[in-house]
């Protein structure tokens, strides 16, 4: 048996790899996405004053800093039994939507577009963000980066500190917005809307008008039939900062909706000995059925595509038109074609930009009533948001003084662990035949997990009983162990 490894680690942000096992004929016998590093923040947070948690968890990841900050501050509100006043909540939403724009921009331009603009079979030396800029022109690259920088400016202006925000306080926000700042944010937000429209135009020109790419996007190779979860507002429209979690099965039927601590009734987690990353599954559908797709599976996905599948529409007008075009293109709902994650991400980027503009024009956004003073400690809080990569859950227990006694973080990449494994195996089986494994073929396999935009630093926070299970167990289709490998 020959083994192929794709090692994604390039810096210190988190460690994982794909292992593909070939049979004696050179065809794919099995494939696994593994995470072989953990960070243990859940343990690290114990003993910390809960009001310090948002600032601390923002360091879980240098990229996803705003999402952990936001989920934690919502949980902290509950711990102290307070609700932010309208202006406080709107400032949080403005901050969060600006973060969405900057994050989605990076994912699309650094990760998604190079495969299409430069080409999936191009040399790796060209198939990257530098190659992308060479292809589209430095002027376009400069404009995209400059506009993305404006989203960062909004994020930092409201967050009160460069890079890692500090403005969250229990029951609100500590930094108000002056009229002068509001005008600046409005002008920047207008440019973010233009960035969203430019991005969708590039996607339209490069992907939607290219028959070969559309075959990839709408074909079966990159199709993973699982259930989905995402947040909806009272009208069923998409919402990022706060909503009700809607869960559907792989046929699109409603499994149920939940808020806060009710997540424990809907989501269970399965531990596998060969990865630090757990496998969440839909508990309401039944007991663990394995990492399988199709009708009856209780594996589910989160993120931009999942949100497109659970919502009835976008909450902003221009993005809504693209939402309609998206579903008209695929026809059936839910859409299981994972390369559509990139399209969904571009639509969401535009929607977040529109939301920034809408909030910047809200007369209430400059109110000084941005904080509700806490007066008690309930001892428990659950913060659920739609992070850019998907549903993020922060659950904390504290003592009567608000000192953290237990923390549970379920992050987007963890939710997507099952679908990622399914996607990798499917693509590997399609593209690797008779032992032929060229770099371009391997890229087609990598394209199966890039849409999820893995965040392994975020995903590996759980100390599983103090063990260090750095070994791999591979099971056959009957569930029997046939191979054990140690410490990759």
């Amino acid at each position, binding site marked *: 048996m020959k083994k192929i490894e*794709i090692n*994604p*680690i*390039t*810096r*210190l*942000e*988190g460690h994982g790899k794909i292992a593909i096992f070939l049979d004696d004929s050179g065809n794919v016998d099995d494939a696994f996405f593994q995470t072989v590093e953990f*960070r*243990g*923040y859940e343990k*690290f947070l114990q003993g910390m004053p809960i009001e310090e948690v948002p600032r*601390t968890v923002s*360091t879980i*990841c*240098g*990229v996803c*800093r705003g999402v952990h900050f936001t989920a934690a501050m919502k949980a902290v509100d509950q711990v102290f039994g307070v609700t932010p006043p309208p202006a406080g909540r709107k400032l949080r939403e403005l901050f969060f939507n600006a973060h969405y724009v900057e*994050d989605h921009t*990076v*994912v699309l331009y*650094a*990760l998604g577009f*190079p495969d299409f603009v430069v080409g999936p079979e191009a*040399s*790796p*030396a*060209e*198939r*990257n*963000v*530098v190659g992308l*800029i*060479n292809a589209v022109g*430095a002027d376009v*690259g*400069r404009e995209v*980066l400059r506009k*993305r*920088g404006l989203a*960062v400016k909004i994020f930092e202006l409201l967050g009160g500190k*460069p*890079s*890692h925000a500090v403005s969250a306080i229990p029951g609100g926000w500590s930094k108000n917005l002056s009229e002068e700042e509001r005008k600046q944010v409005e002008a920047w937000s207008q440019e973010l809307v233009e960035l969203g429209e430019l991005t969708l135009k590039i996607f339209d020109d490069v992907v939607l008008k290219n028959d070969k790419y559309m075959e990839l996007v709408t074909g079966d190779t990159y199709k993973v039939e699982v259930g989905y979860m995402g947040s909806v507002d009272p009208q069923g429209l998409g919402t990022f900062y706060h909503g009700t979690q809607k869960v559907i099965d792989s046929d699109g039927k409603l499994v149920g909706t939940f808020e806060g601590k009710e997540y424990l009734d809907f989501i269970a987690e399965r531990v596998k000995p060969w990865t630090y990353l757990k496998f969440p599954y839909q508990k309401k559908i039944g007991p663990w059925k394995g990492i399988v797709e199709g009708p009856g599976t209780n594996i589910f996905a989160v993120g931009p595509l999942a949100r497109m599948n659970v919502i009835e529409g976008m909450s902003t007008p221009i993005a809504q038109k693209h939402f309609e075009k998206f579903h008209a293109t695929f026809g059936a709902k839910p859409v299981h074609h994972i390369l559509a994650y990139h399209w969904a991400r571009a639509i969401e980027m535009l929607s977040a930009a529109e939301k920034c503009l809408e909030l910047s024009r809200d007369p209430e956004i400059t109110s000084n009533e941005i904080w509700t003073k806490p007066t008690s400690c309930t001892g428990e809080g659950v913060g659920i948001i739609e992070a850019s990569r998907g549903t993020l859950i922060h659950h904390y227990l504290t003592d009567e003084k608000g000192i953290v006694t237990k923390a549970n973080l379920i992050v987007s990449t963890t939710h997507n662990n099952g679908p990622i494994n399914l996607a990798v195996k499917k693509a590997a089986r399609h593209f690797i035949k008779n032992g032929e494994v060229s770099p371009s073929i391997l*890229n087609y396999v*990598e394209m199966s*997990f*890039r849409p999820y*935009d*893995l*965040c*392994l*630093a975020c995903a590996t926070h759980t100390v599983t009983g103090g063990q260090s299970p750095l070994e791999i167990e591979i099971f056959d289709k009957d569930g029997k162990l046939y191979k054990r490998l140690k410490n990759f």
Partner: protein
Amino acid sequence: MEKDEWVVLGIGNPYLQDDRAGVVVTERLEALGLPCRIEQLLTVGFEVLDKIRGASRAIIVDACKLGNPPGSILQVSVDDIFSSHHLVNSHAVTLGTTLKTGIICFPDEMPKELHIWLIEVKDISEFTQVMSPEVEQAVGEVVEGIQRLLTEQPL
């Protein structure tokens, strides 16, 4: 942002053992009150460009894991660290890629003088603000080196 200024950017997770080396260097430089703007980041993405664009000279300090003896100090160029790796996630954008992107897109706004200092880590598995002795010593040497650079080449 002042055009004629030094900016020193430290990169790393302040809670993660040797990964915090770059951040500690900037903290110590700030305490010395040197004539430079201090910036810190936890990542090497496009935020790096936001911090250094417009400055005439920049120094970037980051931890690295390249297989050298722990505490090794490397002074590298953008080309040395530019990687053509096809990315698996957006977090894998490298410092070299970010800087190369900046040079292509913002040729007139990037620092005319760019120094990149890397410190080889020993251990990044513990959440602690205590670095390994090798990296601690290297941090001191980098602080001294940057201090000399700022003193010998004033604006």
